[in-house]
């Protein structure tokens, strides 16, 4: 979801880019006589997926860990792209690498852009083969289970039939949860962080305002702005600003900005950006429009709004009974977007369905963004410990350096 703010908070002894130089690859996962049929019944004739991998797949193919990314994430989870600033690694670099919780000495880590995304995987900005033009709003609405099916198809291409774990924060956590429910025999463990199994009215309300901001932008042009000179940048920036307010906690905002004035000692008393928090939001909005597609923002927002995997409890119970997958559910006390209550509901539903669930609320000042931060250390300790246990069950060798494990 948020993605840039955690990058500058790496601990001094954890250099960025632990996995080194990486590149985004692409695979065609549905085409020709094998189209992707969505849960809604709609079909997509051609689906490409952008993905990255870190570490090595073992001969038993039992050490694959899939990272599901959040709303504004992409396949570039860790390491550095050739030519990029080495201080700006992938969005979850602090958790992926040798000796880190997603330990690339032992695990084969995969991250892929979601269906409907705008970072290399087929989405509304892709060309519709039927018209030769970008889909725009003619792209079908997608559900979390469609995101999962697309990534399963990628795993099939990579020759992986089973995951050691699916791991994700926010919308990524929703995908990990759906993966375990839809394919319980294909996932040993599932780590669901700062996520929700059912958005609250407040969540949906924020989502609605963000959607309106985009769709009411005169440059939105009904979603067909790709060939125009102007794009709905103002609307997308506004949507992103609203999002960012919900990602931070009141405490972290107070600490970061307080009521300080930007570039001045005294207020200027006007309607332009004056307070530091305004400048921050403005920057977040502006930098977002350069790297994200407004239509993808709309689609992912809707995907989250409609997510309701426990709607049919009997179905979930039958699914869970088929496999032996376990769950780790983590929430953060300062996260008011997906509060601990969301996590408790999820843990309780999963337990009710008969699954083994470990749950922890971690005290952190960073709000919903907490899942992107390496501190407090308790967070990575829990994720690392959970993955270590799954690895032990699968006979994967223990962490090379205990010190590195303890540090994380």
């Amino acid at each position, binding site marked *: 979801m948020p993605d840039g703010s955690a990058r500058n908070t790496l601990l001094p002894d954890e250099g960025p880019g632990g996995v080194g130089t990486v590149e985004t690859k692409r695979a065609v996962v549905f085409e020709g006589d094998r189209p992707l049929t969505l849960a809604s019944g709609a079909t997509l004739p051609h689906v490409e997926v952008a993905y990255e991998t870190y570490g090595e797949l073992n001969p038993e193919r039992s050490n694959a860990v899939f990272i599901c990314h959040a709303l504004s994430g992409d396949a570039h989870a860790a390491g550095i792209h050739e030519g990029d600033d080495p201080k700006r690694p992938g969005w979850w670099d602090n958790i992926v690498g040798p000796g880190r919780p997603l330990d690339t000495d032992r695990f084969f880590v995969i991250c892929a852009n979601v269906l409907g995304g705008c970072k290399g995987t087929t989405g509304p900005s892709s060309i519709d083969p039927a018209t030769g033009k970008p889909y725009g709003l003619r792209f079908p609405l997608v559900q979390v289970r469609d995101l999962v099916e697309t990534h399963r198809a990628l795993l099939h291409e990579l020759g992986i039939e089973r995951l050691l774990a699916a791991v994700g924060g926010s919308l990524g956590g929703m995908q990990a949860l759906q993966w375990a429910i839809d394919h319980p025999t294909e996932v040993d463990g599932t780590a669901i962080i700062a996520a929700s199994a059912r958005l609250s009215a407040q969540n949906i309300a924020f989502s609605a305002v963000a959607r309106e901001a985009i769709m009411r932008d005169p440059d939105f042009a009904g979603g067909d702005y790709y060939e125009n000179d102007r794009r709905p940048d103002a609307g997308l920036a506004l949507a992103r600003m609203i999002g960012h307010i919900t990602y931070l906690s009141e405490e972290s905002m107070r600490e970061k900005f307080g009521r300080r004035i930007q570039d001045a000692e005294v207020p200027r008393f006007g309607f332009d950006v004056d307070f530091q928090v305004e400048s921050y939001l403005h920057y977040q909005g502006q930098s977002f429009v350069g790297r994200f597609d407004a239509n993808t923002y709309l689609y992912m927002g809707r995907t989250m709004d409609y997510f309701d995997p426990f709607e049919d409890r009997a179905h979930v119970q039958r699914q869970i009974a088929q496999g032996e997958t376990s769950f*780790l559910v983590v929430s953060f006390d300062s996260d008011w977007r997906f509060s601990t209550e969301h996590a408790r509901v999820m*843990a309780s539903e999963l337990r009710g369905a*008969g699954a083994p669930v*470990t749950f*922890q609320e971690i005290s952190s000042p960073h709000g919903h963004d907490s899942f992107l931060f390496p501190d407090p250390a*308790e967070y990575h300790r*829990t994720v690392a410990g959970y993955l270590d*246990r799954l690895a032990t*069950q699968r006979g994967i060798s223990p962490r090379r350096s205990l010190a590195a494990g303890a540090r994380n």
Partner: protein
Amino acid sequence: MRPDLDIVAGLVGSGQRVLDLGCGDGALLENLISERECSGLGVERELDDFHACIARGVPVTQGDLEDELPRFGAGDFDVAVLSLTLQAVSRPDRVLTEMKRVAPRLVVSLPNFAHWRLRTTVALRGRMPVTDALPYQWFDTPNIHLCTIVDFEELAAELDLAIERRILIDANGHRAPKITSRAPNLLAERAVYSLTA
């Protein structure tokens, strides 16, 4: 596994859905899950113990058992276990009542504060006792609600909890010698109960 936990496990039985309150490092639950076909959940506040549970693959909620208990649904479990923890909670009566709500059967173990060695320490030396079973000083002890076997059984009766079985154990957690049952409140260092609602 500690011998007293073995006795607790025996009372829990096989194939049960178990809630272990204050589950420590998860040794009991691991045994119940792997040896006795139980499914289970632990609740543990201490972080090191919580992580020990994760390492064992025992499902656990990190938190205070008195906060967590009310969140469980009525009858969510078959057995609720409280092993050497009753004396450390702020309201033992409420904890027992809540346990009764979430499970029809309770397994509770406790140190007996009326054991003769503790009695004599207070009576003859005039000091709060420090023993293997209760190794803390009065000022740093987590054991804020110590009771005796007689006290506990009286509370159980008040809460309509029927004592199904009682096993007296020594400080090492082994079954106490037969003679102990002649005067349990004086001779037993600990007791384990199976109670039904």
